[in-house]
């Protein structure tokens, strides 16, 4: 009897230690938590050779457009994102098929080489493949997002839908080491304790100091709210963890813009009755955020994207004043970290049409690349430089 009691005491101590051991062992990794954002220099990289005509257009206003998915027969092509490989090749991915949530939806990839033309889109992830690799039911795919950090490894985040619509989606991560031609078996990322439901990416990731990305994501199951997915190097792979930006049911799809190593601003798609874009600021590297404050830019429940330019000004692509519709796509600038805005250009405007889900990226050379959906059928590409942005800003001043 006494022996049994002694054993119980020993097991109780072991249980306490077993509880605390993983926490204690995470101490070293804990030092990496919220490591801060990697800030670009903002000027052309020293020693970088001029690529194509970019050196020439760096100071002269430059703007051009193209269609990425020319000849596409899909009824739906949407949610495109971009990334640049170390050799300067530009990649675009999007989902396409007969309709949102349809079983024939696949993730398509197209690359733009030195000649400036976009390649024939290739399905890099299909429902059948994801179902086989994850060994679970998949009814559709969506929301791909490329992760590039200048190394030869390229990441792809995308969602699979196991049931229903977007609220039944789960996020997956896969890697390519040959510029997106072949991809590893995807790994499901667990981000929600309730059947891992409803986490979706939409906007550009921010590079982290020490490697990895902060990826703005959102949930839309019972609550609709923005979060940050932290992908950090952990051993051979990347650990995934999620932090809350805001709870509730009124803002989602944040655009994360690092302002300094430990400072950032996020802009949100809004579906409150007033429908104005709101913004939150963080002073602790994205750990906590201020309560979203309404800005002076309208937002009619549509996707938006923002990036920081070399002089610290924020460039925003958004749908302006088209209640319930997305009939235009405009650019706006903010010189005070997102508090006040000036609309500088209209990229698209057509009554009854739809231009949506803009995605912006900026290279170290100052080139700005953008993809967006037209009528959710065409994936359009726009390329311009900061001199063109300055010219537009001057014209409306």
């Amino acid at each position, binding site marked *: 009897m006494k022996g049994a009691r002694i054993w*119980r*005491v020993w*097991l*109780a*101590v072991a*249980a*306490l*230690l*077993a*509880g*605390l*051991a*993983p*926490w204690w062992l*995470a*101490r070293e*990794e*804990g030092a990496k*938590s*919220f490591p801060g954002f990697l800030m670009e220099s903002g000027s052309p990289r020293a020693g970088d050779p001029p690529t194509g005509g970019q050196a020439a257009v760096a100071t002269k206003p430059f703007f051009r457009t193209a269609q990425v998915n020319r000849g596409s027969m899909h009824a739906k092509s949407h949610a495109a994102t971009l990334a640049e490989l170390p050799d300067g090749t530009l990649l675009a991915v999007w989902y396409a098929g007969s309709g949102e949530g349809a079983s024939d939806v696949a993730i398509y990839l197209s690359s733009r080489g030195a000649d400036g033309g976009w390649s024939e889109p290739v399905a890099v992830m299909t429902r059948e493949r994801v179902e086989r*690799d*994850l*060994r*679970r*039911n*998949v009814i559709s795919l969506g929301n791909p997002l490329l992760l590039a950090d200048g190394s030869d490894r390229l990441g792809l985040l995308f969602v699979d839908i*196991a*049931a229903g619509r977007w609220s039944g989606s789960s996020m997956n991560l896969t890697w390519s080491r040959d510029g997106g031609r072949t991809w590893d*078996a995807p*790994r*499901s990322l*667990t981000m*929600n*304790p*309730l*059947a*891992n439901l409803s986490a979706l990416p939409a906007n550009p990731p921010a590079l982290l100091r020490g490697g990895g990305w902060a990826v703005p994501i959102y*949930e839309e*199951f*019972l*609550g*609709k*709210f923005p*979060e940050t997915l*932290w992908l*950090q190097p*952990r051993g051979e792979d990347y*650990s995934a*963890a*999620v*932090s*809350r*930006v*805001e*709870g*509730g*049911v009124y803002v989602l799809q944040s655009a994360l813009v690092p302002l300094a190593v430990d400072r950032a601003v996020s802009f949100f798609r809004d579906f409150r009755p007033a429908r104005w874009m709101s913004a939150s600021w963080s002073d602790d590297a994205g750990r*906590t*955020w201020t*309560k979203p404050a309404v800005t002076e830019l309208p937002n009619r429940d549509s996707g938006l994207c923002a990036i920081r330019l070399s002089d610290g000004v924020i460039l925003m692509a958004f749908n302006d004043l088209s209640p319930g519709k997305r009939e235009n796509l405009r650019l706006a600038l903010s010189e005070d970290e997102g508090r006040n805005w000036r609309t500088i250009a209209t990229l698209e405007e057509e009554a009854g049409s739809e231009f949506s889900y803009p995605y912006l990226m900026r290279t170290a050379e100052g080139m700005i690349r953008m993809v967006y959906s037209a009528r959710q059928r065409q994936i359009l590409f726009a390329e311009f430089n900061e001199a063109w942005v300055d010219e537009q800003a001057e014209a409306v001043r």
Partner: protein
Amino acid sequence: MKETVIIWTTLVPFLLLLWFSQRMSGLPGVAGLALAAVVSAAAVWFPWFGHPVPFWSASLSANFSVIMVGLLIVAVFDRAFASGIFRPRDWRAAWIFGAVASVLLYPSALGLGPRNFDSYALGWPWLFWGQSVWLFGGAGFAAALLIWRGNRFGYVVFLAMLGYAAGFQESDNFWDYLLDPVYGAISLVMILWMVWRRRTGRPRVPTSERSSGR
């Protein structure tokens, strides 16, 4: 996909079916267990709509908790051998633990709690190291207290912590080793049932539990 996922997505539906078919067959002892095991294994591997049950259960959840698996194993053994592994107070501890954990986790994780607090994030110690001590320390303390007081549910919590250290599941969040929606829902129902029983003055534990208790 983590290879251990197939174990969980097979084991949980198998144990659930085993427990259910044990109850349905009414056969006691090893014979009942063997018959139920054969029926359950056949049902789990039968291709329902072209795929076996693990395929569909992975679609529902790839992260059934270690505690859920432990409780199912105990329930199956107790029914087959009247072994009394768990006494009524052990079951009560299991339901209280599951209900409390559910209340602490799900509303906040679904965005229905404080505006920018997510209790689920405490399960990733490398991101929220400072705050996650409350979850890891709390689970360790609960297991230690239960074991020290002779409550056998404490050993199941202990196993869940060992499972996390070994990285058995697809999820690397500690919460998913302790709790899943099925265990959480059963716990909440059992707690409500126990409260109702107490209020109406009826026995606090089911007859089946009392008969196997020691």
